[in-house]
């Protein structure tokens, strides 16, 4: 149904173009439920948004039912009618009631009569469990309810495929379940879906296939069985082992240290990591930013916790800074004196990408 070939996407940041997608190839068949997983900032959402051209790809091909949608002459609105999308932030139309949110599309785009559209809308709302909220305004709903209305709105257009862009990321943990169960129900009914998600258990249960994305490519794909239990590649294994993590993106040394500290503390307390380890993490992150990393571009810091092995991994990613650091003796001295003693192992980048270093700390 959808074939993607050599898809690439560069964000035109004024000073430094940033390549989010490098070379994405895949095929999605009718009836499949695909979950797209991977670390943050690796282009999962961008990839999904390219599929209905909310982002314009920089190169490659996307063919939907035999039509290349990157062709300028393609009627993209017509293609989008077949592809529903559910957003992280719900994006219900705030000025319309729940019912109107679900009827506007069919009436204005599918030529349905108002009565017919309302009948269908009530059925869909009933399906997502919100029939009694038909007259409410979006502002009166909880996050979980909003997302379920968004799914109903999406279904009202009778799409052939639905793209879910992190549908539960903006929800309170208590509301995640209600949304996931609606998606599960759709999966049972045989709806074709592509879901970007961080809910690993859900992805494992519901999907027919998993795409593991990292660094702008689909690094590994396979059935949930394969990806979660016996992944064949290093990075996939690492990701599956340490799926719990937080990360920070910095562009200068003047960053929000108190904010980072409290995020790290919250993260540690969530997984019952000892306080001295948490102090150690904060210490390392601060020193790396202050002394080691040259701030000449975007820097991503990733703190991951692997429950299986009871280890913390801190990874530093930066663009074009490996050379500068490796050739600077002073930096190496500081690193050896202050950082290295705090770590179990220091793992220089194995994959040749722009990861600078990975530090392992025992708990």
């Amino acid at each position, binding site marked *: 149904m959808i074939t993607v070939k050599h898809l690439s996407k560069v964000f035109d940041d004024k000073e430094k173009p940033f390549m989010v997608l490098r070379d994405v190839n895949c095929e999605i068949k009718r009836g499949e439920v695909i979950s797209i997983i991977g670390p943050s900032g690796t282009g999962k959402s961008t990839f999904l948004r390219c599929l*209905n051209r*909310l982002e314009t790809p920089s190169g490659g091909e996307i063919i939907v039912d035999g039509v290349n949608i990157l062709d300028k002459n393609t009627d993209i*609105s*017509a293609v*989008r*009618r077949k*592809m*529903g*999308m559910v*957003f992280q*932030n*719900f*994006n*219900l*139309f*705030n*000025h319309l009631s729940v019912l109107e949110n679900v009827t*506007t*599309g069919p009436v*204005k*785009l599918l030529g349905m009569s108002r009565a017919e559209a309302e009948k269908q809308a009530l059925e869909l709302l009933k399906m997502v469990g919100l029939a009694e909220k038909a007259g409410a305004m979006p502002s009166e709903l909880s996050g979980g309810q909003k997302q379920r209305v968004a799914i109903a*709105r*999406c279904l009202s*257009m009778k799409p052939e495929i639905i793209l879910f862009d992190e549908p539960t990321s903006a929800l309170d943990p208590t509301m995640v379940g209600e949304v996931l169960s609606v998606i599960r129900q759709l999966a049972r009914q045989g709806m074709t879906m592509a879901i970007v998600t961080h809910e690993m258990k859900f992805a494992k249960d519901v999907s027919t296939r998993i795409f593991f994305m990292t660094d702008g490519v689909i690094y590994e794909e396979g059935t949930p069985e394969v990806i979660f239990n016996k992944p064949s590649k290093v990075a996939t294994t690492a990701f599956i082992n340490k799926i719990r993590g937080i990360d920070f993106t910095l562009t200068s040394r003047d960053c929000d240290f108190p904010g980072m500290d409290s995020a790290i503390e919250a993260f540690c307390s969530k997984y019952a990591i000892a306080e001295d380890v948490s102090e150690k993490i904060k210490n390392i992150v601060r020193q790396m930013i202050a002394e080691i990393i040259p701030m000449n571009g975007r820097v991503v810091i990733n703190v991951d916790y692997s429950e299986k092995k009871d280890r913390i991994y801190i990874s530093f990613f930066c663009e074009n800074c490996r050379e500068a650091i490796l050739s600077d003796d002073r930096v190496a001295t500081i690193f050896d004196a202050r950082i290295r003693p705090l770590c179990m192992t220091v793992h220089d980048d194995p994959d040749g990408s722009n990861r600078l270093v990975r530090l392992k700390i025992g708990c």
Partner: protein
Amino acid sequence: MRKITILLISILVMVSCSANTGRNGSHEVTKPEDLEGCTAGCIAGSLVDLNFEELCPGAIKQVYNNSVDLLTALDNGRVQFTVEDTILVLGIDPNLHPIEPLCRVPDIDGDIAAAFRKSDAALCARFNEFLAGIKADGTYGAMRDRWISDKYTVSEMPEIETFTEGQPLVVGTMVQIPCFFIKNGEWVGFEAELMKRFAAYLHRPLEVEAYDFSALMASLKTGVINVWCSFITVNEERSKEVLFSDPYYFSPVMVFRKATASQAADIPFYKKVSNSFNNNILVEDRWKMLLDGLWETIVISFFSLLFGSLLGALICLLRMSGNRFLSNFAKVYVEILRGVPMLVLLMVMFYLVLSSTGLSGRWVAVISFAINFSAYACEIFRTGIGAIDKGQTEAGLAMGFTRVGTFFNFIVPQALKNILPVFKNEAVSLIKGTSIVGYVAIQDLTKTSDMIRARTFDPFFPLIIISIIYFFLAWLFGKALDRISKKIA
């Protein structure tokens, strides 16, 4: 509402009454030099204004736009003396505003003549021919007797033939008793009759446009008017710029002072108000003039708002378009227009940019106000639209709406809610802002009140009336917009 109105009137009247105390230059004045150290008022652009330092060395000059404002300044003591043409005080009712002449200013007074463009010598020659004619057949003498006398009177205009076909003769003047003023909705006065007869002599229709004195030179030179006839004294400086006809009058310039008090003080307050109302609104159907002025204000406001909003939407579109060139153009457009004072823009449009198009003042004003308003409207629209979450657009697009469809179905209804309150403010300030169109001879509400003031020499009452009318206009408009926004919400 009624209470508020009454409160408003009484506050304004009280303010106007309390201003009536002041100083008086009580020493003897026999020559202009005696004004040294005193405050003296004159009319902007008059020869007294231009040569004040030589005429009255050491005196402090205050400049006013017309003889009513000058008289008011004398009345409430802002100036101790006025220096002006004697003819300018002829229409003043000595019972209401007693003034006394003190001495002549010999270096300055002189012949009064009409002014023409240098390139328009033929018309000037016709005027001289015409003037010689009426002087010879006694018409001129009758006119002088009719309009210019020592006593405070206002005469009737005689029947004069009028023409409706052909190129109109456009006369620029300043509203001033007894030269050019309005009675029963008609232009009357000494110069009014002169010009009416001249137009009849030429077999052309007559058009009269009323400006401030200081704006008349520019209007003549840019060709907005054909004849400048507002009791101008011939002098060398002016002769370099314009072509003067033969003189039709000789007027001495004199120094005036407020005469000792009248009996006006013991009239009760309500009587004063009702007298003023009668004088300024009812007599000679002056309310009809006000209504016409109000209509003009409404027309200009309405079309300026309409075109301004449309243009603003267009500029907003350019500003938000992806095209760098268009968006920068819109940005510069907005920046420039927000930096230019409205009056300056109006003048530039009237005298320079649109002067050759022959567009009437009303439409020049509409265009100028629309352009000015569009800059503000653009910013209002832009911020209103910008405040809408990008996700709303994405949701619309993802459903399969086109960009335009998304914009009108989902963005506009939400943006309007943000836009309308700010838009209302800006629109009301536009309505009030139209009060400056009198500068380009449009008889809007403010200008008609000025004309009534020039006629009745009542400095405040017409102003109070029009401020109340403006208030209601703005208030009604605001209510209407509130209604619309409630409907949308």
